[in-house]
């Protein structure tokens, strides 16, 4: 009997897990690979529904040395390829059936969700409680909340992003080596039920004591541990709302303005987009975007329980004063864009099967890095030059800037439909950005090796990180491989 058969047999006998081994069904699981990373058909897909089953699946994987790839989101699409197996004979642990919203806490503004809970599902439920989740820009409806946040996908409200891994907090996880662990509040003492009974919000992400292992596993692309459930911070919807738009041709001026606004805690969700980004995300007519300044800062203001209207108007007026000082103007409307729609876009997820990054099929270039607002100008100019050099129209380039951690840094994303030039464009753009100190904090695909060649310190310690969680290298082999290969400093 092969390892995999023995593994599946043991799992079946011990846990009664649902296991998929039908060849046709397995083939389907990798059918929507939108990345340029290779993927192989898994030997089996298993569907745990309890933490104990995940634990058993990983313990057995260690025993039988079976490689495991984990997937939390519903469906079979993968933009980055990290949730698709790369090594022959892999098993996919699919958590999409662990999809209970375990707890919603209105007093403490917290939700506890299993790994398979999607953005659409959570927001729908939260709404009934007067709450919502600050998610990534037009988050994919069927994307797992936990998977996105574990990947450090930036959420829209920089002022609430105090530190990584906000808004993710406590996590119940199983290490690659099969050990069960609670990070932050999830460590206990006590079971989750006992802690909730005592009034705990599970809102502590760090700990116990010296540890912060939940944060360690962020950005790890499923190579260290499997998170089974986690708590996430959520926000009150509020009683009134208003949109605010500020535009400029100069991203340096607008970026500096955004920083001043956010550091004073003005506004809620806030993004910076170029023209193409405005038309793609907000569905604006090209005719409208052609006429407007190159960059738009979009934010919303809300009022809550205490003097809501006054709070909201104050926020807006303070933004106006800051704008005036910077030679900018705040508008409550934007030509061609209905405010209700704008608000829904900011506060909502994408519609099912209609994700903004994927509209063009599998020939997109999507590169993102984490830097500061003051380099957006330089990077955008470089990106435009690169796409032009690759024979593409720079006007088609989407630039999305997401201020993060109170605007101390920002996610800068470049996306373009590139057809058969996609691979070449991605490589060149990635290289140019890397050479100009773009910090690819989430390395994917073709850029991975070059990134780890540059960031030697991180690479030097990655074997130790791996050894701590997954000494046998069971989880997602092949992913972040150039990092885990280690190397001298």
């Amino acid at each position, binding site marked *: 009997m092969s390892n995999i058969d023995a593994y599946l047999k043991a799992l079946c006998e011990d846990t009664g897990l649902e296991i998929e081994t039908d060849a046709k069904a397995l083939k389907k699981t990798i059918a929507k690979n939108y990345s340029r990373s290779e993927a192989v058909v898994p030997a089996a897909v298993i569907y745990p529904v309890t933490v104990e089953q995940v634990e058993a699946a990983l313990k057995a994987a260690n025993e039988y040395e079976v490689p495991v790839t984990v997937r939390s989101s519903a469906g079979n699409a993968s933009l980055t390829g990290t949730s698709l197996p790369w090594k022959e004979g892999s098993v996919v642990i699919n958590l999409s059936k662990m999809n209970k919203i375990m707890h919603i806490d209105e007093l*403490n503004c917290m939700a506890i969700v299993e790994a398979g809970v999607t953005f659409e599902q959570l927001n729908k439920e939260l709404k009934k409680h007067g709450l919502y989740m600050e998610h990534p820009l037009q988050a994919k409806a069927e994307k797992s909340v936990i998977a996105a946040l574990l990947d*450090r996908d930036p959420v829209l409200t920089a002022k609430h992003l105090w530190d*990584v891994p906000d808004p993710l907090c406590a996590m119940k996880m199983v290490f690659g080596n099969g050990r069960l*662990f*609670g990070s*932050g*509040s999830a460590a*206990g*003492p*006590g079971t989750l039920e006992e802690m909730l009974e*005592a*009034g*705990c*919000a599970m809102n*502590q992400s*760090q*700990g*116990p*004591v*010296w*540890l912060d*292992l939940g944060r*360690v596993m962020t*950005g*790890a692309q499923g190579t260290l541990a499997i998170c089974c459930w986690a708590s996430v*911070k959520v926000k009150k919807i509020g009683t009134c709302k208003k949109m605010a738009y500020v535009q400029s041709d100069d991203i340096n001026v607008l970026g*500096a303005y955004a920083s001043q606004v956010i*550091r*004073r*805690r003005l506004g809620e969700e806030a993004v910076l987009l170029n023209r193409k980004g405005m038309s793609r995300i907000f569905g604006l007519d090209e005719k409208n975007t052609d006429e407007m300044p190159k960059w738009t800062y979009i934010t919303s203001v809300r009022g809550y*329980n*205490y003097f809501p209207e*006054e*709070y909201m108007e*104050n926020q807006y007026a*303070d933004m106006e004063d800051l704008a005036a000082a910077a030679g900018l103007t705040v508008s409550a409307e934007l030509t061609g864009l209905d405010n209700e729609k704008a608000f829904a876009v900011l506060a909502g997820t994408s519609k099912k099967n209609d994700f903004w990054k994927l509209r063009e099929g599998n020939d997109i270039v999507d590169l993102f890095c*984490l*830097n*500061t*607002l003051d380099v957006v100008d330089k990077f955008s100019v470089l990106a435009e030059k690169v796409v032009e050099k690759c024979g593409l129209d720079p006007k088609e380039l989407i630039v999305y800037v997401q201020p993060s951690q*109170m*605007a*101390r840094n920002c996610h800068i994303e470049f996306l373009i439909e590139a057809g058969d030039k996609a691979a070449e464009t991605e490589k060149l753009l990635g290289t140019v950005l890397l050479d100009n*100190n773009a*910090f*690819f*904090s*989430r*390395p994917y695909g073709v850029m991975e090796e070059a990134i*780890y060649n540059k*960031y*030697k*310190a*991180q690479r*030097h*310690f*990655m074997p*130790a990180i791996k*050894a*701590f969680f997954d000494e046998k290298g069971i989880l997602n082999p092949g992913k972040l491989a150039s990092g885990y290969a280690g190397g001298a400093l």
Partner: protein
Amino acid sequence: MLIPVEAYKEIEKIVGSENITADEQICDTYSQFLFHRPDPQVWWQRPAAIVMPGSTEEVAGFVKVCNKYKIKYKAHSTGYGAENGATAPDCVLVDLRRMNHIVQLDEKNMIAVVEPYVTGGEVEYMAWQHGLTACLTTAGPQSSPLASVTSHQGGNCAGCSMGYNGRNMLACEWVSPDGEIVKVGSAEMDEYFTADGPGPSFKAMIRGYFGFDGAMGIFTKAALKLYHWAGMTDYKIPNDGNLYEADVEIPDNIRFYTMIHNEWEDLEKAYYALAETEVCTYMNKFSIGITGQAYMPEFFEQALKLPHLREALKMARHKTVITIVGNSDRDLDYKVKCVEQIAKESNAILIGGKVDNPYRKAQVASLCKYDGYASLFNGPGSFHVAMGADEAIHVNVKQAQEAQRIKEGMIAAGQCEDDLGCGAWLGIYEQSSRGHNEAVMLIDPRKEYSLSAMMTYSIECSKVLATQHLGGIGFAAFGGRETVETFDPITSNYYEHTLKVKGLLDPDNLANMTFV
């Protein structure tokens, strides 16, 4: 000498003969006072030698020598807390006072990069001039923000608007336990805006919730998050900081309040509302007992003996000190209205506001000088902290109530100093439902009973924490070995995992662990 002569010579070559000594009298000055433990040997060992490196390269060279000769060492930045003390007689103390530069203050991105011996006061003063502020702990302006963000806890009175310092570090430069110079996160390209990646967060292996207290190599530069500040940009305290006589300018957009609650339930309600409205720049509950003992010990001791006065003092046990700073006139108006409304709804007595009285000036001076519990270390005073981790405000309030009940029992039995029972140092963090509670007990280290009370209090509080499920371990960690034994099996084997992390990065435990 407790370290090999050859090792001493090699270190001397690296740092220069004037920057190393094994002189016993000098080494004795680095022996620490009691803090959180009655058994002095935990921190009160005379170090084998003192080394004062002047650069990251010298630190790295020194650590390499330690590895070669298997010498224990411990980093010491400003050295205020006892945790920096030598944990064994053959431990070398690394006094980092020569590394005292503010490397960078990046106004645009709200980041300050500092070396170990830069003091909080220095950063704050520079930050204020740029409309920014640093998050300093109540240890005072003389202590090292680098030590705080990289290595030791991080509770503070600004937590509501500036968070916990364990979450206030961006990138850093670090000398690993094997003596390599490591730039963590974006520091590798000499920019300090993020600590995490590429890929997993290595930063979180070396700085968790409490910090490794010098047991994880030596941090040589750290990027502090700065926050927006619309308060004073400069200050002068003509009489050099005497709080009672301070004569400082009070900016028009700052208000100081004391909000006094009689009932815990009311206080809790107020805290949730203060979090929701995001009005406070500073806020924290101080207890009358701790304040009284710290600032007017003779009066307080006498007052407690008078039954009526004792009861009267208890009425003000739960006092929350609040500072609000208006970013604009309308912002100030809104914040004032909220504070007043919240006080009304929660049956509080609200003192302060714009009233021009000397007390207000003392509060401004206190802000400038960050004088808080520091005063407790006048003479032989000391304090101890027990209880759990940050959790929901509601749970932190419960922790405080339980700790009060335990201490009241001990006071009645004459087992500890009388501070009226409640020692809760309680606040909200990150303008959210996250609370922070430190159950403080005053200690007189001259008295045997006071020292053993410290451990009894810790152990009793830990029991409550474990059986009533009031959040994570947190300050129960000060219970030492006993805590590990109680909590490790019921808290995800955190200690076993910690030793594994430590073993991977510092297999010989040369950067010596303190608490256990």
